């Protein structure tokens, strides 16, 4: 296997891009990443996306996006793993380059969630759950996560307020990220008063939907110096899965997919918990932040909320979380999110984050993208090149 490096990154702001089509969004991110690397062509394009078929009546994104960026003819396919689609596409690019079968690949995540009504979008997002036994009987994606949050509070005695610091931290960071959907900070009172979507989950517990695209260009590490972009080493990108429906899990409060994916990634990268300088966690819901921290091994079972304070997760904390706003503050264009996380992690390693957000000289960072409620988990570990 060859060592893989990221030599180009690109993104569009996460917004309600009513005036930009899905293909243009993806193309902008791809071209930004190629420009960053100074690359004129690549061998392959992997497009992470979840809902283009349902929400924009467009599939076959591989050939479509390749054509849009002037690369018609290359290998190009769409990869789908619900909200984990983008990191799954990244994994495909890494596999291809590591194996030696291709010499350069772009992974782009793109999603357009504001093309149709909110009703259609809610329906589309629910397709990440079990169609026969969850969605068909009235469970929204939010409701599924609400079942987890309720049980967690019951089992460990936490109050709803205890989750607020995760949300406040994400928004505080997003306010300094020009690509983030939300530029406003929030406080505990606003959290308490937010509208309930599916009890106990309120609007501020759930990440906002938006449109966006993010991309990276990966090449063999040995070729990396031929490109312009500052080089980041891909130390690991590993996938672990779990049952799609919560009810089939022995303990729904333990995300086995997260545990499996994290363990594999740590082994591949040869790192331990204390080596991780920041963690772009998949904070689609506050409860998922807590359960992820536990299944990753950063917190004891039932005790992740003890980390919900600045000393633990703030930019100067022991394990900074969601340093660019996370899904909560940057926004969650579902099938693009995993590559936003990877682009943000790479930006931190390069030292190119906005001043207010830059972590002091990070060496090793982790990004974790989750499809469904813990069903498909992709953990990436990136390092500054020695």
């Amino acid at each position: 296997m060859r060592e893989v490096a990221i030599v180009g990154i690109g993104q569009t702001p996460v917004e309600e891009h009513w005036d930009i089509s899905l293909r243009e969004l993806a193309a902008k991110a791809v071209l930004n990443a190629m420009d960053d690397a100074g690359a004129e062509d690549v061998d392959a394009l992997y497009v992470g996306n979840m809902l283009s078929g349902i929400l924009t009546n467009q599939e076959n994104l591989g050939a479509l996006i390749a054509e849009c960026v002037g690369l018609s003819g290359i290998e190009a396919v769409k990869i789908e793993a619900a909200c984990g689609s983008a990191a799954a596409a990244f994994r495909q690019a890494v596999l291809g380059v590591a194996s030696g079968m291709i010499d350069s690949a772009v992974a782009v995540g793109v999603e357009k969630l504001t093309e149709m009504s909110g009703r259609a979008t809610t329906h589309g997002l629910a397709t990440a759950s079990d169609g026969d036994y969850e969605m068909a009987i009235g469970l929204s994606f939010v409701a599924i996560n609400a079942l987890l949050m309720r049980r967690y509070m019951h089992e460990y005695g936490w109050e709803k307020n205890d989750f607020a610091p995760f949300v406040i931290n994400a928004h505080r960071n997003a306010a300094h990220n020009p690509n983030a959907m939300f530029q406003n900070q929030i406080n505990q009172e606003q959290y308490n008063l937010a509208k309930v979507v599916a009890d106990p989950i309120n609007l501020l517990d759930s990440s906002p939907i938006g449109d966006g695209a993010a991309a990276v260009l990966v090449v063999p590490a040995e070729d990396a110096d031929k490109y312009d972009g500052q080089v980041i080493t891909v130390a690991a990108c590993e996938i672990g899965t779990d049952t799609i429906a919560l009810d089939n899990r022995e303990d729904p409060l333990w995300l086995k997919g997260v545990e499996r994916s994290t363990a594999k990634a740590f082994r591949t990268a040869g790192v331990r918990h204390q080596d991780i300088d920041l963690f772009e966690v998949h904070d689609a819901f506050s409860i998922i932040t807590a359960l992820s921290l536990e299944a990753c091994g950063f917190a004891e079972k039932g005790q992740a909320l003890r980390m919900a304070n600045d000393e633990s997760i703030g930019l100067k904390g022991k394990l900074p979380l969601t340093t660019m706003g996370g899904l909560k503050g940057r926004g969650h264009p579902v099938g693009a999110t995993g590559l936003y996380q990877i682009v943000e992690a790479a930006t931190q390693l390069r030292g190119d984050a906005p001043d207010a957000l830059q972590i002091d000289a990070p060496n090793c960072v982790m990004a974790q993208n989750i499809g469904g409620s813990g069903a498909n988990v992709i953990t990436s570990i990136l390092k500054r090149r020695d």
Partner: protein
Amino acid sequence: MDIPRSWRLRNQRYLLEGNACTSCDKKHFPPVLVCSECKSRDLRPFTFSGKGKLYSYSTVYQAPGQFEAFVPYIVALVDLEEGPRITTQLTDISPDEVRIGMPVEKVIRKISEEGERGLILYGYKFRPPVD
């Protein structure tokens, strides 16, 4: 509306039929092709009693499309007596009466409908035991 799906799932939705592994006896709902416990592919149909305890619940205020007319409604995870946990709606109870751990039982109710002339979908919901 996906009519074949509703037809295919009739024994699950109306009877709460799952299956049981013939080698390790683990009960499954929904029915599985491969036993998650021992990997056996030899399973027989098994009808659940419909009695269980509440594992978790949520009151839904913003619902997917065809359920908008029903808000607020309560969804839940129920631990069935025979082992598996099932995802369901609760009925015949108001949100402030629901408690984790309370006993519940299966009942057949309307799940959703597609407009005035559309298909009406029936299936299991759970309620506090009546007797």
